[in-house]
Protein backbone atom coordinates (compact mmCIF):
# COMPACT_ATOMS: atom_id res chain seq x y z
CA UNK A 1 0.00 0.00 0.00
CA UNK A 2 2.84 2.36 0.84
CA UNK A 3 4.40 1.57 -2.52
CA UNK A 4 1.12 2.30 -4.25
CA UNK A 5 0.70 5.64 -2.49
CA UNK A 6 4.32 6.53 -3.11
CA UNK A 7 3.96 5.82 -6.82
CA UNK A 8 0.70 7.71 -6.90
CA UNK A 9 2.52 10.71 -5.49
CA UNK A 10 5.35 10.30 -7.99
CA UNK A 11 2.79 10.10 -10.75
CA UNK A 12 1.13 13.29 -9.59
CA UNK A 13 4.51 15.04 -9.54
CA UNK A 14 5.31 13.86 -13.05
CA UNK A 15 1.82 14.71 -14.26
CA UNK A 16 2.18 18.20 -12.80
CA UNK A 17 5.10 18.89 -15.12
CA UNK A 18 3.10 17.62 -18.09
CA UNK A 19 0.12 19.74 -17.08
CA UNK A 20 2.29 22.82 -16.63
CA UNK A 21 3.58 22.43 -20.16
CA UNK A 22 0.17 21.55 -21.53
CA UNK A 23 -1.50 24.74 -20.21
CA UNK A 24 0.42 26.82 -22.71
CA UNK A 25 0.12 24.32 -25.54
CA UNK A 26 -3.64 24.07 -25.06
CA UNK A 27 -3.99 27.85 -24.72
CA UNK A 28 -2.28 28.42 -28.06
CA UNK A 29 -4.42 25.79 -29.73
CA UNK A 30 -7.69 27.01 -28.29
CA UNK A 31 -7.01 30.73 -28.69
CA UNK A 32 -4.82 31.04 -31.75
CA UNK A 33 -5.76 27.83 -33.53
CA UNK A 34 -2.15 26.74 -33.85
CA UNK A 35 -0.98 23.18 -33.29
CA UNK A 36 2.48 24.36 -32.34
CA UNK A 37 5.06 21.65 -32.97
CA UNK A 38 7.76 24.09 -31.82
CA UNK A 39 6.24 24.44 -28.37
CA UNK A 40 8.54 21.80 -26.91
CA UNK A 41 11.53 23.83 -27.94
CA UNK A 42 10.33 26.72 -25.79
CA UNK A 43 10.69 24.33 -22.85
CA UNK A 44 14.20 23.31 -23.90
CA UNK A 45 15.15 26.95 -24.39
CA UNK A 46 13.68 28.06 -21.08
CA UNK A 47 15.71 25.41 -19.29
CA UNK A 48 18.79 26.28 -21.29
CA UNK A 49 18.50 30.01 -20.61
CA UNK A 50 18.10 29.35 -16.89
CA UNK A 51 21.16 27.09 -17.02
CA UNK A 52 23.07 29.84 -18.77
CA UNK A 53 22.11 32.23 -15.96
CA UNK A 54 23.33 29.76 -13.36
CA UNK A 55 26.54 28.88 -15.18
CA UNK A 56 27.64 32.29 -16.42
CA UNK A 57 26.34 34.69 -13.79
CA UNK A 58 26.08 32.44 -10.73
CA UNK A 59 22.44 33.35 -10.36
CA UNK A 60 20.56 31.65 -7.55
CA UNK A 61 17.89 29.26 -8.74
CA UNK A 62 14.83 31.46 -8.43
CA UNK A 63 16.19 34.44 -10.44
CA UNK A 64 17.53 31.93 -12.97
CA UNK A 65 14.05 30.45 -13.32
CA UNK A 66 12.61 33.92 -13.83
CA UNK A 67 15.19 34.68 -16.52
CA UNK A 68 14.47 31.35 -18.22
CA UNK A 69 10.71 31.87 -18.14
CA UNK A 70 10.87 35.41 -19.48
CA UNK A 71 13.41 34.37 -22.10
CA UNK A 72 11.14 31.58 -23.30
CA UNK A 73 8.18 33.96 -23.35
CA UNK A 74 10.03 36.48 -25.50
CA UNK A 75 11.14 33.70 -27.80
CA UNK A 76 7.48 32.72 -28.11
CA UNK A 77 6.52 36.26 -29.10
CA UNK A 78 9.34 36.42 -31.65
CA UNK A 79 8.26 33.11 -33.17
CA UNK A 80 4.66 34.28 -33.33
CA UNK A 81 5.66 37.50 -35.12
CA UNK A 82 7.99 35.82 -37.61
CA UNK A 83 6.32 32.51 -38.31
CA UNK A 84 2.63 32.69 -37.42
CA UNK A 85 1.56 36.30 -37.80
CA UNK A 86 2.27 36.49 -41.56
CA UNK A 87 -0.09 33.55 -42.07
CA UNK A 88 -3.05 35.05 -40.18
CA UNK A 89 -4.19 37.22 -43.05
CA UNK A 90 -3.87 34.40 -45.56
CA UNK A 91 -6.17 31.92 -43.94
CA UNK A 92 -3.95 28.93 -44.59
CA UNK A 93 -5.63 27.14 -41.72
CA UNK A 94 -4.19 24.45 -39.54
CA UNK A 95 -1.84 23.05 -42.17
CA UNK A 96 -0.01 26.35 -42.70
CA UNK A 97 0.86 26.86 -39.07
CA UNK A 98 1.81 23.21 -38.63
CA UNK A 99 4.32 23.63 -41.44
CA UNK A 100 5.88 26.85 -40.14
CA UNK A 101 5.98 25.47 -36.62
CA UNK A 102 7.80 22.38 -37.93
CA UNK A 103 10.28 24.78 -39.54
CA UNK A 104 10.69 26.69 -36.29
CA UNK A 105 11.05 23.45 -34.33
CA UNK A 106 13.86 22.37 -36.66
CA UNK A 107 15.64 25.72 -36.28
CA UNK A 108 15.29 25.98 -32.50
CA UNK A 109 16.06 22.29 -31.97
CA UNK A 110 19.24 22.43 -34.03
CA UNK A 111 20.31 25.48 -32.05
CA UNK A 112 19.65 23.64 -28.77
CA UNK A 113 21.82 20.78 -30.01
CA UNK A 114 24.53 23.21 -30.96
CA UNK A 115 24.55 24.87 -27.54
CA UNK A 116 24.49 21.59 -25.62
CA UNK A 117 26.91 19.86 -27.99
CA UNK A 118 24.32 17.06 -28.51
CA UNK A 119 24.72 16.11 -24.86
CA UNK A 120 22.40 16.16 -21.90
CA UNK A 121 23.06 19.08 -19.58
CA UNK A 122 22.02 19.46 -15.96
CA UNK A 123 21.94 22.16 -13.33
CA UNK A 124 25.09 22.07 -11.22
CA UNK A 125 24.50 20.37 -7.87
CA UNK A 126 23.62 22.78 -5.12
CA UNK A 127 21.58 25.01 -7.44
CA UNK A 128 18.43 23.94 -5.65
CA UNK A 129 17.74 21.77 -2.62
CA UNK A 130 18.01 18.09 -3.48
CA UNK A 131 16.68 16.87 -0.14
CA UNK A 132 14.00 14.27 0.23
CA UNK A 133 11.00 15.62 2.08
CA UNK A 134 9.08 13.16 4.25
CA UNK A 135 5.30 13.19 4.11
CA UNK A 136 4.15 10.63 6.63
CA UNK A 137 5.68 7.36 5.51
CA UNK A 138 6.12 8.68 1.98
CA UNK A 139 8.70 11.01 0.59
CA UNK A 140 9.24 13.26 -2.39
CA UNK A 141 12.13 15.26 -3.72
CA UNK A 142 11.98 18.95 -3.02
CA UNK A 143 11.77 19.76 -6.71
CA UNK A 144 8.86 17.36 -7.21
CA UNK A 145 6.94 19.21 -4.53
CA UNK A 146 7.73 22.48 -6.30
CA UNK A 147 6.34 20.92 -9.47
CA UNK A 148 3.07 19.93 -7.84
CA UNK A 149 2.58 23.26 -6.09
CA UNK A 150 3.43 25.16 -9.27
CA UNK A 151 0.97 23.19 -11.40
CA UNK A 152 -1.93 23.61 -9.00
CA UNK A 153 -1.21 27.29 -8.29
CA UNK A 154 -0.88 28.15 -11.97
CA UNK A 155 -4.00 26.16 -12.85
CA UNK A 156 -5.95 28.10 -10.23
CA UNK A 157 -4.43 31.39 -11.35
CA UNK A 158 -5.16 30.71 -15.03
CA UNK A 159 -8.70 29.66 -14.21
CA UNK A 160 -9.37 32.90 -12.34
CA UNK A 161 -7.73 34.99 -15.07
CA UNK A 162 -9.61 33.26 -17.88
CA UNK A 163 -13.02 33.26 -16.21
CA UNK A 164 -13.08 36.38 -14.08
CA UNK A 165 -11.01 39.09 -15.73
CA UNK A 166 -11.51 41.23 -18.80
CA UNK A 167 -8.22 39.97 -20.17
CA UNK A 168 -9.35 36.36 -19.86
CA UNK A 169 -12.67 37.19 -21.48
CA UNK A 170 -10.73 38.82 -24.32
CA UNK A 171 -8.59 35.72 -24.78
CA UNK A 172 -11.64 33.48 -24.84
CA UNK A 173 -13.41 35.81 -27.25
CA UNK A 174 -10.48 35.75 -29.67
CA UNK A 175 -10.40 31.97 -29.40
CA UNK A 176 -14.05 31.81 -30.33
CA UNK A 177 -13.97 34.25 -33.20
CA UNK A 178 -11.23 36.86 -33.65
CA UNK A 179 -13.25 39.08 -35.97
CA UNK A 180 -16.28 39.19 -33.75
CA UNK A 181 -14.00 39.86 -30.79
CA UNK A 182 -12.39 42.77 -32.61
CA UNK A 183 -15.81 44.21 -33.48
CA UNK A 184 -16.84 44.13 -29.84
CA UNK A 185 -13.78 46.11 -28.84
CA UNK A 186 -11.25 43.45 -27.93
CA UNK A 187 -7.76 44.40 -29.00
CA UNK A 188 -7.13 41.13 -30.85
CA UNK A 189 -3.52 41.96 -31.71
CA UNK A 190 -2.67 42.51 -28.07
CA UNK A 191 -4.48 39.36 -26.99
CA UNK A 192 -2.51 37.33 -29.53
CA UNK A 193 0.82 38.72 -28.31
CA UNK A 194 -0.15 38.15 -24.72
CA UNK A 195 -1.24 34.57 -25.39
CA UNK A 196 1.94 33.82 -27.30
CA UNK A 197 4.05 35.19 -24.45
CA UNK A 198 2.09 33.46 -21.71
CA UNK A 199 2.05 30.10 -23.46
CA UNK A 200 5.77 30.09 -24.23
CA UNK A 201 6.61 31.35 -20.73
CA UNK A 202 4.61 28.48 -19.22
CA UNK A 203 6.44 26.04 -21.49
CA UNK A 204 9.74 27.57 -20.35
CA UNK A 205 8.71 27.14 -16.72
CA UNK A 206 7.77 23.51 -17.31
CA UNK A 207 11.10 23.06 -19.08
CA UNK A 208 13.12 24.47 -16.17
CA UNK A 209 11.26 22.35 -13.63
CA UNK A 210 11.43 19.22 -15.77
CA UNK A 211 15.13 19.83 -16.40
CA UNK A 212 15.69 20.19 -12.66
CA UNK A 213 13.60 17.17 -11.67
CA UNK A 214 15.07 14.78 -14.23
CA UNK A 215 18.58 16.27 -14.58
CA UNK A 216 18.02 16.36 -18.29
CA UNK A 217 18.28 19.57 -20.30
CA UNK A 218 18.36 18.77 -24.00
CA UNK A 219 16.42 18.83 -27.22
CA UNK A 220 14.95 15.46 -26.33
CA UNK A 221 13.52 16.83 -23.09
CA UNK A 222 11.50 19.41 -25.01
CA UNK A 223 10.31 16.83 -27.52
CA UNK A 224 9.21 14.49 -24.73
CA UNK A 225 7.31 17.31 -23.04
CA UNK A 226 5.69 18.22 -26.35
CA UNK A 227 4.27 14.75 -26.90
CA UNK A 228 3.22 14.25 -23.28
CA UNK A 229 1.75 17.74 -23.13
CA UNK A 230 -0.06 17.09 -26.40
CA UNK A 231 -1.50 13.91 -24.90
CA UNK A 232 -2.50 15.78 -21.74
CA UNK A 233 -4.33 18.45 -23.74
CA UNK A 234 -6.16 15.93 -25.90
CA UNK A 235 -7.10 13.68 -22.99
CA UNK A 236 -8.19 16.55 -20.80
CA UNK A 237 -9.90 18.66 -23.41
CA UNK A 238 -9.01 21.96 -25.01
CA UNK A 239 -9.42 25.41 -23.70
CA UNK A 240 -10.06 24.69 -20.05
CA UNK A 241 -7.21 24.55 -17.54
CA UNK A 242 -9.12 22.24 -15.23
CA UNK A 243 -9.40 19.63 -17.93
CA UNK A 244 -5.77 20.07 -18.92
CA UNK A 245 -4.61 19.69 -15.32
CA UNK A 246 -6.70 16.56 -14.92
CA UNK A 247 -5.39 15.21 -18.24
CA UNK A 248 -1.77 15.86 -17.26
CA UNK A 249 -2.19 14.24 -13.85
CA UNK A 250 -3.99 11.26 -15.36
CA UNK A 251 -1.17 10.68 -17.81
CA UNK A 252 1.52 11.13 -15.18
CA UNK A 253 -0.15 8.67 -12.82
CA UNK A 254 -0.93 6.19 -15.61
CA UNK A 255 2.70 6.25 -16.73
CA UNK A 256 4.17 5.71 -13.30
CA UNK A 257 1.62 3.05 -12.37
CA UNK A 258 2.03 1.31 -15.70
CA UNK A 259 5.78 1.24 -15.29
CA UNK A 260 5.42 -0.10 -11.75
CA UNK A 261 2.75 -2.73 -12.25
CA UNK A 262 2.85 -3.67 -15.93
CA UNK A 263 6.14 -3.09 -17.66
CA UNK A 264 8.45 -0.13 -17.76
CA UNK A 265 9.01 -0.48 -21.49
CA UNK A 266 5.30 -0.05 -22.15
CA UNK A 267 5.26 3.27 -20.36
CA UNK A 268 4.90 5.30 -23.54
CA UNK A 269 2.41 2.82 -24.95
CA UNK A 270 0.07 3.64 -22.09
CA UNK A 271 0.30 7.37 -22.68
CA UNK A 272 -0.11 7.30 -26.43
CA UNK A 273 -2.64 4.49 -26.28
CA UNK A 274 -4.71 6.63 -23.94
CA UNK A 275 -4.26 9.56 -26.33
CA UNK A 276 -5.43 7.54 -29.32
CA UNK A 277 -8.33 5.99 -27.47
CA UNK A 278 -9.60 9.34 -26.23
CA UNK A 279 -9.33 10.82 -29.72
CA UNK A 280 -11.49 8.02 -31.08
CA UNK A 281 -14.05 7.82 -28.34
CA UNK A 282 -14.30 11.39 -27.15
CA UNK A 283 -12.29 13.71 -29.39
CA UNK A 284 -13.11 16.80 -27.38
CA UNK A 285 -11.42 15.36 -24.32
CA UNK A 286 -12.63 13.52 -21.27
CA UNK A 287 -13.38 16.61 -19.22
CA UNK A 288 -14.30 19.18 -21.80
CA UNK A 289 -17.72 20.49 -22.68
CA UNK A 290 -16.23 23.16 -24.89
CA UNK A 291 -16.72 22.77 -28.58
CA UNK A 292 -13.74 23.54 -30.73
CA UNK A 293 -14.98 25.96 -33.32
CA UNK A 294 -11.84 26.95 -35.11
CA UNK A 295 -8.24 26.00 -35.43
Amino acid sequence: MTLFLQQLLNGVALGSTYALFAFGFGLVFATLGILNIAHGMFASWGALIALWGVDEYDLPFIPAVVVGVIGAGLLGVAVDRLAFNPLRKRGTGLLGTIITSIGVAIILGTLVDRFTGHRTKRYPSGTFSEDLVDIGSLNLQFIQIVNIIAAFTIAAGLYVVMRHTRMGAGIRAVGYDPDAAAISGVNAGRVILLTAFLAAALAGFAGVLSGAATSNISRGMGDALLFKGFAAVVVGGFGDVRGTLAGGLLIGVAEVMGAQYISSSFRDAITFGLLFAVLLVRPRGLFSELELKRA
Partner: protein
Amino acid sequence: MIAFLDIFSDYRATFTFGLIYGLFALATYASLATGVLSMAAATFGAFGGFSYARLQADHDIGLLGGLVAGLLAGAAIAWILSFVLLRLSSHYVAMATIALVLITRVFVVNLPSLTGGPNGTGLVRQSTLWWVLGVTAVCLFVFWRLANSRYGLAATAVREDPQAASTLGVSVRHIQRVSLVLSGAIGGVAGVLMADQLQFIGPNTFYIDLAFTMLAAVVLGGAYHWFGAIVGAIVFRFLPEILSDYIDDGHEIANGILLVIIMIYLPRGIVDPRRRKQREHGLGSKRKSAKADAALAHDQAEAVTS
Protein backbone atom coordinates in the same frame (compact mmCIF):
# COMPACT_ATOMS: atom_id res chain seq x y z
CA MET B 1 25.94 17.70 -69.53
CA ILE B 2 29.23 16.46 -68.11
CA ALA B 3 28.84 18.84 -65.19
CA PHE B 4 25.41 17.39 -64.67
CA LEU B 5 26.79 13.83 -64.67
CA ASP B 6 29.42 14.93 -62.17
CA ILE B 7 26.82 16.26 -59.85
CA PHE B 8 24.83 13.11 -60.41
CA SER B 9 27.63 10.79 -59.31
CA ASP B 10 28.52 13.04 -56.38
CA TYR B 11 24.99 13.07 -55.15
CA ARG B 12 23.88 9.61 -56.23
CA ALA B 13 22.95 8.51 -52.72
CA THR B 14 21.25 11.80 -52.01
CA PHE B 15 19.23 11.46 -55.18
CA THR B 16 18.21 7.90 -54.31
CA PHE B 17 17.02 8.92 -50.88
CA GLY B 18 15.44 12.02 -52.33
CA LEU B 19 13.27 9.77 -54.49
CA ILE B 20 12.39 7.50 -51.58
CA TYR B 21 11.45 10.54 -49.54
CA GLY B 22 9.49 11.61 -52.57
CA LEU B 23 7.47 8.39 -52.32
CA PHE B 24 6.73 9.10 -48.67
CA ALA B 25 5.72 12.60 -49.66
CA LEU B 26 3.46 11.15 -52.38
CA ALA B 27 1.86 8.94 -49.74
CA THR B 28 1.18 12.02 -47.63
CA TYR B 29 -0.10 13.87 -50.67
CA ALA B 30 -2.45 11.02 -51.56
CA SER B 31 -4.53 11.57 -48.45
CA LEU B 32 -4.07 15.33 -48.39
CA ALA B 33 -5.56 15.46 -51.88
CA THR B 34 -8.92 14.53 -50.37
CA GLY B 35 -8.51 16.86 -47.42
CA VAL B 36 -7.30 14.23 -44.95
CA LEU B 37 -4.37 15.79 -43.10
CA SER B 38 -2.61 12.56 -42.19
CA MET B 39 0.91 11.99 -40.97
CA ALA B 40 0.47 8.24 -40.97
CA ALA B 41 2.75 7.71 -43.99
CA ALA B 42 5.57 7.00 -41.53
CA THR B 43 3.46 4.29 -39.90
CA PHE B 44 2.61 2.73 -43.27
CA GLY B 45 6.34 2.87 -44.05
CA ALA B 46 7.09 1.04 -40.82
CA PHE B 47 4.63 -1.71 -41.70
CA GLY B 48 6.13 -2.05 -45.17
CA GLY B 49 9.73 -1.86 -44.01
CA PHE B 50 9.46 -4.28 -41.13
CA SER B 51 7.38 -6.79 -43.11
CA TYR B 52 10.05 -6.74 -45.79
CA ALA B 53 12.86 -7.12 -43.23
CA ARG B 54 11.11 -10.10 -41.67
CA LEU B 55 10.36 -11.75 -45.01
CA GLN B 56 13.91 -11.24 -46.16
CA ALA B 57 15.36 -12.72 -42.98
CA ASP B 58 13.00 -15.72 -42.84
CA HIS B 59 12.15 -16.48 -46.45
CA ASP B 60 14.89 -14.78 -48.42
CA ILE B 61 12.36 -12.83 -50.41
CA GLY B 62 13.45 -10.85 -53.47
CA LEU B 63 12.97 -7.14 -53.94
CA LEU B 64 9.93 -7.42 -56.16
CA GLY B 65 8.22 -9.74 -53.72
CA GLY B 66 9.20 -7.39 -50.93
CA LEU B 67 7.67 -4.43 -52.73
CA VAL B 68 4.43 -6.31 -53.26
CA ALA B 69 4.42 -7.38 -49.60
CA GLY B 70 5.07 -3.82 -48.47
CA LEU B 71 2.34 -2.49 -50.70
CA LEU B 72 -0.16 -4.99 -49.36
CA ALA B 73 0.89 -4.49 -45.74
CA GLY B 74 0.63 -0.72 -46.01
CA ALA B 75 -2.67 -0.79 -47.86
CA ALA B 76 -4.19 -3.30 -45.45
CA ILE B 77 -3.25 -1.35 -42.35
CA ALA B 78 -4.44 1.89 -43.96
CA TRP B 79 -7.76 0.27 -44.82
CA ILE B 80 -8.24 -0.92 -41.24
CA LEU B 81 -7.22 2.47 -39.82
CA SER B 82 -9.51 4.32 -42.20
CA PHE B 83 -12.52 3.03 -40.27
CA VAL B 84 -11.38 4.74 -37.11
CA LEU B 85 -9.62 7.77 -38.58
CA LEU B 86 -12.30 8.95 -40.99
CA ARG B 87 -14.90 9.21 -38.26
CA LEU B 88 -12.93 12.16 -36.90
CA SER B 89 -13.07 15.72 -38.18
CA SER B 90 -9.96 17.08 -39.84
CA HIS B 91 -8.01 18.54 -36.90
CA TYR B 92 -8.48 15.41 -34.91
CA VAL B 93 -7.31 13.26 -37.82
CA ALA B 94 -4.03 15.18 -37.78
CA MET B 95 -3.66 14.60 -34.06
CA ALA B 96 -4.70 10.96 -34.19
CA THR B 97 -2.13 10.23 -36.89
CA ILE B 98 0.58 11.94 -34.84
CA ALA B 99 -0.46 9.70 -31.95
CA LEU B 100 -0.35 6.73 -34.30
CA VAL B 101 3.24 7.44 -35.32
CA LEU B 102 4.21 7.76 -31.66
CA ILE B 103 2.47 4.47 -30.85
CA THR B 104 4.10 2.69 -33.78
CA ARG B 105 7.52 3.35 -32.31
CA VAL B 106 6.44 1.91 -28.95
CA PHE B 107 5.34 -1.27 -30.68
CA VAL B 108 8.55 -1.50 -32.70
CA VAL B 109 10.55 -1.24 -29.49
CA ASN B 110 8.42 -3.76 -27.65
CA LEU B 111 8.07 -6.49 -30.26
CA PRO B 112 11.67 -7.64 -30.58
CA SER B 113 10.72 -10.99 -32.13
CA LEU B 114 9.20 -9.18 -35.10
CA THR B 115 11.20 -5.98 -35.38
CA GLY B 116 14.45 -6.56 -33.54
CA GLY B 117 13.27 -4.24 -30.78
CA PRO B 118 15.49 -1.31 -29.81
CA ASN B 119 18.43 -2.79 -31.72
CA GLY B 120 16.59 -2.79 -35.02
CA THR B 121 16.97 -5.17 -37.94
CA GLY B 122 19.66 -5.44 -40.56
CA LEU B 123 18.92 -6.15 -44.23
CA VAL B 124 20.75 -7.06 -47.41
CA ARG B 125 20.50 -4.35 -50.04
CA GLN B 126 18.90 -5.54 -53.26
CA SER B 127 17.74 -2.34 -54.93
CA THR B 128 19.69 0.09 -57.05
CA LEU B 129 19.04 3.66 -58.04
CA TRP B 130 17.35 2.32 -61.18
CA TRP B 131 14.94 0.26 -59.13
CA VAL B 132 14.05 3.29 -57.07
CA LEU B 133 13.68 5.39 -60.21
CA GLY B 134 11.46 2.73 -61.78
CA VAL B 135 9.19 2.44 -58.76
CA THR B 136 8.93 6.21 -58.52
CA ALA B 137 8.08 6.43 -62.20
CA VAL B 138 5.33 3.85 -61.81
CA CYS B 139 3.89 5.68 -58.80
CA LEU B 140 4.00 9.01 -60.62
CA PHE B 141 2.30 7.43 -63.61
CA VAL B 142 -0.47 6.17 -61.35
CA PHE B 143 -0.94 9.63 -59.85
CA TRP B 144 -0.92 11.27 -63.26
CA ARG B 145 -3.62 8.92 -64.48
CA LEU B 146 -5.60 9.28 -61.27
CA ALA B 147 -5.47 13.07 -61.39
CA ASN B 148 -7.25 13.01 -64.75
CA SER B 149 -9.75 10.37 -63.78
CA ARG B 150 -13.18 10.57 -62.23
CA TYR B 151 -11.52 9.71 -58.93
CA GLY B 152 -9.19 12.73 -59.24
CA LEU B 153 -12.10 15.02 -59.94
CA ALA B 154 -14.04 13.63 -57.01
CA ALA B 155 -10.97 13.96 -54.77
CA THR B 156 -10.61 17.64 -55.65
CA ALA B 157 -14.28 18.19 -54.99
CA VAL B 158 -14.05 16.47 -51.60
CA ARG B 159 -11.01 18.50 -50.68
CA GLU B 160 -12.43 21.86 -51.68
CA ASP B 161 -15.90 21.42 -50.26
CA PRO B 162 -17.04 18.10 -48.79
CA GLN B 163 -20.65 19.25 -48.37
CA ALA B 164 -20.96 20.36 -51.96
CA ALA B 165 -19.28 17.16 -53.11
CA SER B 166 -21.70 15.00 -51.21
CA THR B 167 -24.63 16.98 -52.59
CA LEU B 168 -23.33 16.12 -56.03
CA GLY B 169 -23.48 12.46 -55.18
CA VAL B 170 -19.82 11.92 -54.32
CA SER B 171 -19.43 9.66 -51.33
CA VAL B 172 -16.96 11.68 -49.26
CA ARG B 173 -16.16 8.84 -46.87
CA HIS B 174 -15.55 6.43 -49.72
CA ILE B 175 -13.22 8.77 -51.64
CA GLN B 176 -11.28 9.52 -48.49
CA ARG B 177 -11.00 5.83 -47.72
CA VAL B 178 -9.62 5.12 -51.18
CA SER B 179 -7.12 7.95 -50.76
CA LEU B 180 -5.99 6.59 -47.41
CA VAL B 181 -5.52 3.09 -48.82
CA LEU B 182 -3.55 4.59 -51.71
CA SER B 183 -1.46 6.47 -49.17
CA GLY B 184 -0.91 3.22 -47.26
CA ALA B 185 0.13 1.32 -50.38
CA ILE B 186 2.68 3.93 -51.43
CA GLY B 187 3.87 4.43 -47.86
CA GLY B 188 4.44 0.67 -47.60
CA VAL B 189 6.42 0.60 -50.85
CA ALA B 190 8.47 3.60 -49.71
CA GLY B 191 9.14 1.81 -46.42
CA VAL B 192 10.46 -1.25 -48.27
CA LEU B 193 12.81 0.82 -50.42
CA MET B 194 13.92 2.85 -47.41
CA ALA B 195 14.70 -0.31 -45.43
CA ASP B 196 16.49 -1.81 -48.41
CA GLN B 197 18.65 1.23 -49.08
CA LEU B 198 19.47 1.92 -45.43
CA GLN B 199 20.23 -1.77 -44.83
CA PHE B 200 19.15 -1.19 -41.28
CA ILE B 201 15.87 -0.13 -39.73
CA GLY B 202 15.21 0.60 -36.09
CA PRO B 203 12.59 2.25 -33.92
CA ASN B 204 13.63 5.74 -35.05
CA THR B 205 13.65 5.07 -38.80
CA PHE B 206 9.93 5.63 -39.27
CA TYR B 207 9.38 8.08 -36.47
CA ILE B 208 7.82 11.46 -36.09
CA ASP B 209 10.72 13.34 -37.74
CA LEU B 210 10.01 11.50 -40.98
CA ALA B 211 6.29 12.19 -40.67
CA PHE B 212 6.81 15.90 -40.13
CA THR B 213 9.46 16.32 -42.82
CA MET B 214 7.34 14.53 -45.38
CA LEU B 215 4.31 16.68 -44.68
CA ALA B 216 6.62 19.68 -44.92
CA ALA B 217 8.02 18.40 -48.22
CA VAL B 218 4.53 18.10 -49.70
CA VAL B 219 3.64 21.65 -48.79
CA LEU B 220 7.03 22.92 -49.92
CA GLY B 221 6.68 21.27 -53.30
CA GLY B 222 3.03 22.17 -53.70
CA ALA B 223 0.09 20.46 -52.08
CA TYR B 224 -2.19 20.99 -55.07
CA HIS B 225 -0.39 18.87 -57.62
CA TRP B 226 0.97 15.33 -57.44
CA PHE B 227 4.33 16.37 -58.87
CA GLY B 228 4.85 18.82 -56.02
CA ALA B 229 5.47 16.02 -53.53
CA ILE B 230 8.47 14.67 -55.45
CA VAL B 231 9.87 18.15 -56.10
CA GLY B 232 9.48 19.11 -52.44
CA ALA B 233 11.12 15.95 -51.14
CA ILE B 234 14.08 16.27 -53.50
CA VAL B 235 14.60 19.94 -52.65
CA PHE B 236 14.30 19.09 -48.98
CA ARG B 237 16.89 16.36 -49.35
CA PHE B 238 19.32 18.17 -51.62
CA LEU B 239 19.38 21.61 -50.08
CA PRO B 240 21.09 20.57 -46.82
CA GLU B 241 23.45 18.34 -48.77
CA ILE B 242 24.55 21.16 -51.05
CA LEU B 243 24.66 23.73 -48.29
CA SER B 244 26.75 21.49 -46.05
CA ASP B 245 29.65 22.09 -48.44
CA TYR B 246 29.54 25.75 -47.50
CA ILE B 247 28.21 25.86 -43.96
CA ASP B 248 29.24 23.03 -41.64
CA ASP B 249 26.29 22.68 -39.39
CA GLY B 250 23.76 25.25 -40.49
CA HIS B 251 22.11 23.08 -43.13
CA GLU B 252 19.41 21.79 -40.82
CA ILE B 253 18.58 25.35 -39.93
CA ALA B 254 18.43 26.22 -43.62
CA ASN B 255 15.65 23.66 -44.07
CA GLY B 256 13.73 25.16 -41.19
CA ILE B 257 14.07 28.68 -42.54
CA LEU B 258 13.10 27.48 -46.02
CA LEU B 259 9.88 26.00 -44.65
CA VAL B 260 8.86 29.18 -42.88
CA ILE B 261 9.68 31.37 -45.89
CA ILE B 262 7.94 29.11 -48.41
CA MET B 263 4.83 28.93 -46.29
CA ILE B 264 4.69 32.70 -45.93
CA TYR B 265 5.60 33.79 -49.45
CA LEU B 266 4.57 30.79 -51.53
CA PRO B 267 1.84 29.11 -49.50
CA ARG B 268 0.76 26.94 -52.43
CA GLY B 269 4.26 25.56 -52.89
CA ILE B 270 6.71 25.38 -55.77
CA VAL B 271 4.47 23.45 -58.16
CA ASP B 272 1.19 25.28 -58.31
CA PRO B 273 -1.27 24.39 -61.07
CA ARG B 274 -3.29 27.54 -60.50
CA ARG B 275 -0.28 29.73 -61.21
CA ARG B 276 0.41 27.89 -64.42
CA LYS B 277 -3.16 28.29 -65.53
CA GLN B 278 -2.98 32.02 -64.89
CA ARG B 279 0.18 32.25 -66.94
CA GLU B 280 -1.24 30.30 -69.83
CA HIS B 281 -4.37 32.34 -70.02
CA GLY B 282 -2.67 35.70 -69.73
CA LEU B 283 -2.63 37.76 -66.58
CA GLY B 284 -5.62 40.04 -66.37
CA SER B 285 -5.48 41.36 -69.94
CA LYS B 286 -9.06 42.51 -70.28
CA ARG B 287 -9.45 42.06 -73.98
CA LYS B 288 -8.51 38.40 -73.76
CA SER B 289 -10.15 37.59 -70.49
CA ALA B 290 -13.49 36.58 -71.97
CA LYS B 291 -11.75 34.22 -74.34
CA ALA B 292 -9.59 32.85 -71.52
CA ASP B 293 -12.61 32.27 -69.36
CA ALA B 294 -14.28 30.43 -72.18
CA ALA B 295 -11.19 28.30 -72.68
CA LEU B 296 -11.07 27.58 -68.96
CA ALA B 297 -14.72 26.68 -68.91
CA HIS B 298 -14.14 24.44 -71.90
CA ASP B 299 -11.24 22.71 -70.11
CA GLN B 300 -13.35 22.14 -67.07
CA ALA B 301 -16.26 20.87 -69.10
CA GLU B 302 -13.93 18.43 -70.78
CA ALA B 303 -12.56 17.32 -67.44
CA VAL B 304 -16.03 16.67 -66.17
CA THR B 305 -17.18 14.70 -69.16
CA SER B 306 -14.03 12.63 -69.67
